[in-house]
């Protein structure tokens, strides 16, 4: 797994208090990892902070799964 994926996973595990092995490529933050809409806002903020990037609101709405997040950040960072 890439360095970016490891860092994203760490943030997801910390913020959502979920087991690391639940954070799979297709795991949906809301449907599979127990997040609500405010949790996802906070997650995106944490990604921005960690990677020093800005994720516009319309882009943030497309980030639904762990895989989406890694893909977006890999392209942006």
């Amino acid at each position, binding site marked *: 797994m890439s360095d970016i994926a490891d860092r994203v996973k760490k943030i997801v595990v910390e913020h959502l208090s979920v087991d690391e092995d639940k954070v799979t490529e297709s795991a949906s933050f809301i449907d599979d990892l127990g997040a609500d809409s405010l949790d996802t806002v*906070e997650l995106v903020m944490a990604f921005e*902070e960690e990677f020093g990037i800005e994720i516009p609101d319309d882009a943030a709405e497309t980030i639904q799964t762990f895989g989406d997040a890694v893909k977006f950040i890999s392209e942006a960072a």
Partner: protein
Amino acid sequence: MRRVVVTGLGMISPLACGVEETWSRLLDGESGAGPITRFDPERVTTKYACEVPLGDGTDGTFNPDDWMAPKERRKVDDFILFAIAAADQAVQDAGWAPEDEESLLRTGVMIGSGIGGLSSIADTAILMNEKGPRRVSPFFIPGSLINLASGQVSIRHGFKGPNHAVVTACSTGAHAIGDASRLIAFGDADVMVAGGAESAICELGIAGFNACKALSTKRADDPKAASRPWDSERDGFVMGEGAGVVVLEEYEHAKARGAKIYAEILGYGMSGDAYHITAPSEDGDGGFRSMKAALARAGLEPDAIDYINAHGTSTMADTIEMGAVERLLGDAAGKATMSSTKSSVGHLLGAAGAVEAIFSILAIRDQVAPPTINLDTPPEGAKIDLAPNGKREREINVALSNSFGFGGTNATLVIGKVDG
């Protein structure tokens, strides 16, 4: 009007986590004061406060993990955490865990706060200044709003009745219990979870009350002696934190389910000073009218009062309240006992009226008036026993609890023993 009784108690105080632990320490004359640890107090004048003792949950300490998962706790200010914990205790004590829809619809929540999420507001303002508005957490607003204490408790227990929050500074807790009682008396609910919560021991909170010249400043060398209501050497209040929550219930409802009944809310009075933003009027007329209204509602004469839990903050206002009480009681002042439990727990601001109502209820249950500690030199000519430095084991059938707040807002509860 329907009768309202108290069937559950919950408390997080500077003396302990839990009602009975706090009560036994209070009767033993302990103080919850100590050096401030919540933040570095170097820049503020007052460097001591009455903080809730944090720990692993043993020996009366408060362990946040026992009440809320770390993930959820990050989303709320401490006043909400304290409210949730005290409400859990009260609901459990009352044995009120209904699952049928009708009971849930008839159970409401009214937990207030004087200031709400002050430390969250301060921290977030600093964060925004440093990193910009995009770094403001989505949980900042719902974690700071005062009515989110009631909201969180309602969500946690599924209570779908009236959901309300009182904000009347240091009268909040008393107003919440009084207003919630009225909702039951009027039939809007059968059960109400009511009280107050506060967590304003942060740099901005201490600095703000220091600026008002309201806090004790002179006893950094001996914080436990700093809160000294009525004493000639008092120099301001000591800030406390925590929460007090009670379960109020319609009398027949409580009897029908065989609930343990602690006491009855007999009367509730309110008044406004219309005088000054932070000081009470010197004749104590606001407090007097509040007490008088509560007694009238209870249908009692002043000589029925056995115990008074005073507002008594350890400020110059203490003797104004004493004057109002003596004016109210007249010749009966000699047979009543009045104490200020703020001498032990400090001033819990919006939670004060709720924890003090609980102390008044326990005074009735155990027939003992808690002491006013640190009262070495009572005011000359006091006609009423102020329980200096020792609890009073005595007959207590009726207790009165006063709360007065900035803005000249006054509330009085009259609480009575229920026989049988």
